[in-house]
């Protein structure tokens, strides 16, 4: 216990504190620039930390990774462009709010939710570390497959009244995810001999292509600014109040975020959709989702911040990255001379506490700075879009290019953008396609391992059966609440969600 508070003193020491703030500032910048995410930030910082003392390096790295899920809300809300792969669901309701001129309110709610979610994640991390090992060990491949399946089951809810389209879109996403090298056999699928496709299509390009490009095109066609209203409406304080009003949503979604982060295999980019899908499923009055319901912003934002705390658990305890940026963070640990694993809880406990404090403090500063920046940045939504478009096109092109630094990235962006625009025009749910894409690898890998290892007996495992029940309940709830709405609202709701 005293070690816990001692490390707070260590983190607050000026040299470490400066590193923390540096990390936070960097995380803010990376989050605000659309398309970049934790992996980019880690990649940039890793060569820098060589030779640094461990606590400073931790403060820097974690400061950065903790803040990205906060600051990535800016482009998602204000331009409908995913700030990072964990912030895609925020677009669904955040962007319509910006169009109504309520960007500041959306941001205020999002940052409050992010702050509370992040602190929740840090708290869970500190409490659970001693008992986490046996829990993670309970989730073997069959259980991880069921979790990925739970993720896919949200597709129905996210597709409104035409779940068929949702499942088909998810199918397209699954097939797109299968492109490239197969997870378990040395084969390449549909690469047509192209080196570029050997590793499949990068996630950042799929996200930007499906969401950012159609948005930019449509705004240019309509020839106006993002906000339909000339003056900005409610301010960020109202957003904060909204968030506090819905504190149970924050709590529930933070829990979801921590769990998804904690279990290696689902990946961070699906956590926001799971939270978003969950909140729709469990709400009776859902007509406003997709049109600017503030709850649709609060849910994913609290989940994606909490996920960072959760993702540190398997990274520290097992050396298994809980998300893509954690994979690079692991490399950082090795450079610093730390071998993550069971030894960490005994030998390097002080580092785990440093991480927890860095996470908590970074969230506080990140949210605070973001709120300060909210007012000036939201003015961008009044600028006529034809001035903004060139910068945005440049930024998303740059973000796509950093995926694998080859021409293929740009071609892929064009193709995905075209696909995304067509899906938008004809009302095919893009979130479903994205979820399919993200979960494709997990579903295939874990199913393949389960069948190889256990034959079909894997389905009789208690964990699998328990998760199957949860999936049934979740889907059932989604259908049940759906049926209670009057039919007029159905059509509106479904259009909102494409």
């Amino acid at each position, binding site marked *: 216990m005293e070690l816990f508070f001692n490390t707070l003193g260590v983190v607050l020491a000026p040299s470490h504190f400066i590193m923390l703030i540096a990390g936070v500032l960097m995380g803010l910048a990376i989050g605000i620039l659309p398309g970049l995410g934790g992996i980019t930030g880690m990649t940039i910082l890793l060569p820098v930390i060589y030779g640094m003392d461990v606590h400073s390096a931790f403060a820097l790295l974690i400061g950065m990774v903790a803040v990205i899920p906060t600051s990535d809300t800016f482009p998602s809300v204000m331009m409908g462009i995913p700030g990072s792969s964990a912030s895609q669901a925020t677009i669904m309701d955040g962007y319509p709010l910006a169009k109504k001129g309520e960007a500041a309110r959306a941001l205020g709610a999002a940052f409050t939710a992010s702050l509370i979610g992040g602190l929740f994640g840090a708290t869970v991390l500190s409490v659970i570390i001693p008992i986490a090992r046996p829990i993670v060990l*309970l989730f*073997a*491949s069959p259980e991880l497959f069921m979790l990925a399946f739970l993720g896919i089951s949200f597709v129905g809810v996210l597709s409104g009244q035409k779940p068929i389209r949702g499942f088909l879109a998810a199918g397209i996403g699954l097939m797109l995810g299968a492109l490239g090298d197969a997870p378990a056999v*040395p084969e390449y699928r549909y690469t047509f001999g192209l080196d570029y496709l*050997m*590793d499949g299509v990068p996630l950042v390009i799929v996200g930007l292509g499906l969401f950012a490009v159609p948005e930019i095109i449509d705004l240019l066609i309509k020839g106006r600014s993002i906000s339909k209203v000339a003056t900005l409406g409610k301010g960020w304080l109202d957003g904060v109040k909204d968030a506090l009003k819905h504190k149970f949503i924050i709590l529930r979604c933070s829990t979801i975020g921590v769990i998804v982060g904690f279990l290696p295999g689902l990946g961070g980019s699906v956590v926001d959709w799971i939270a978003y899908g969950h909140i729709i499923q469990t709400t009776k009055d859902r007509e406003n989702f997709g049109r600017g319901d503030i709850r649709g912003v609060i849910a994913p934002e609290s989940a994606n911040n909490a996920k960072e705390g959760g993702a540190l658990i398997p990274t520290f305890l097992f050396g298994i990255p809980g998300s893509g940026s954690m994979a690079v963070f692991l490399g950082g640990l*090795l450079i610093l001379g730390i071998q993550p*694993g*069971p030894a960490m809880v005994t030998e390097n406990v002080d580092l785990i506490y440093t991480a927890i404090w860095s996470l908590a403090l970074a969230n506080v500063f990140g949210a605070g700075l973001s709120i300060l920046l909210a007012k000036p940045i939201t003015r961008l939504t009044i600028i006529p879009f034809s001035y903004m478009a060139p910068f945005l096109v440049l930024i998303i092109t740059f973000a796509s290019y950093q995926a694998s630094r080859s021409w293929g990235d740009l071609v892929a962006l064009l193709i995905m953008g075209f696909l995304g625009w067509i899906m938008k025009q004809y009302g095919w749910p893009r979130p479903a396609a994205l979820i399919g894409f993200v979960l494709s690898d997990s579903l295939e890998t874990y199913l393949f391992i389960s069948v190889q290892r256990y034959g079909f007996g894997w389905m009789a495992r208690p964990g699998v059966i328990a998760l199957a029940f949860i999936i049934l309940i979740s889907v059932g709830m989604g259908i049940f609440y759906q049926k209670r709405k009057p039919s007029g609202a159905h059509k509106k709701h479904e259009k909102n969600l494409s």
Partner: protein
Amino acid sequence: MKKLQCVLVLLIALAFIAVPNAFSVDFSGKTIEWIIPFDVGGGSDVWARLYAPFLHKYLPGTPIVAIKNMPGGGSIIGGNHFASRAKPDGLTIFGSSGSTTFPYLLDNPRVKYDFAKYPIVFATPVGGMAYIRPEFGVKSVADLKGLKKQLAYASQGATSLDIVPLLAFDILGLNVKAVFGYKGRGPGRVAFEQGEVTIDYQTSPAYIKNVRPLVKQGQAVPLLSWGMIDKDGNMVRDPEEPDLPNLAEAYEIMYGKKPQGPAWNAWKAFFIAGFAVQKAVWLPENTPDEIVAAHSKAAEKTVADPEFQKVAAAELGGYTQLVGPAARKAFNQVLQVPKKDREWLINWLKTKYDVTIK
């Protein structure tokens, strides 16, 4: 007389140019680009970043040593880039790992690089140790002979570094089912702890940190190490676990004779490529001798540096780094594998795992 003087001056000048001289090479103000065909943070990336500051210090002219990550295609893309683009001016070096060498050895048509043509600068060995779950009642390699039960091994793929453990288990006559799809040895170890798989191996740094505690707690039983190659090219025990028999000794313990035959020859070659010289640094084809000498000398000084030795012991497992001729000698054992042994392995992959290299 004047003509003679001219000829003499010319001859002396030529003499200076012709002698390969490490001291005439100077990289000051330049940047050495070190291509690593893997992602930032991966094992090979960490290895390069540990070496880079020392190479910077010891290369003539203290040039910047910048790591250029070019992941993709299982490291084949980075290798191909090096093969086609690197100029023989000493400013580009290439770091390969086992996953770069294996496709080369297996005649993968996508591979455009050829290690036989490149001068090697230095190589870093790594060891591997295999262990089994306690519930089989196996206390050591000797008990394996009677074990008929099927074991499960978490594998990344039949053409990955896993060729070494899978073929080793085959040679020992174990009934091992390879479960494919795991993303690395880390997930493999977790699967072992969960009981999802029952036999596993880890590279030495991971074994030391993560498996030794399991052994102490009685949750894992160490079996054997793959072994190591000494400076004369002989198979010896792994210095990190001197009590564990290497594969040849394990076979002898179980069957009373030394292993031999195409399986053993193939295993030895792939073991050397995948472990004994797992990571290596190369210069492009036709690099002048003095540049190769300059790089080799910098590597020698690095290895002799006590600060580097400390770092290497902590991160790389404390094995003797191979430099210059020793590295070339070790890697030649890989390059000189008779074609029939390689073909035996390709055939083994096809019959046992239904894998053809396309």
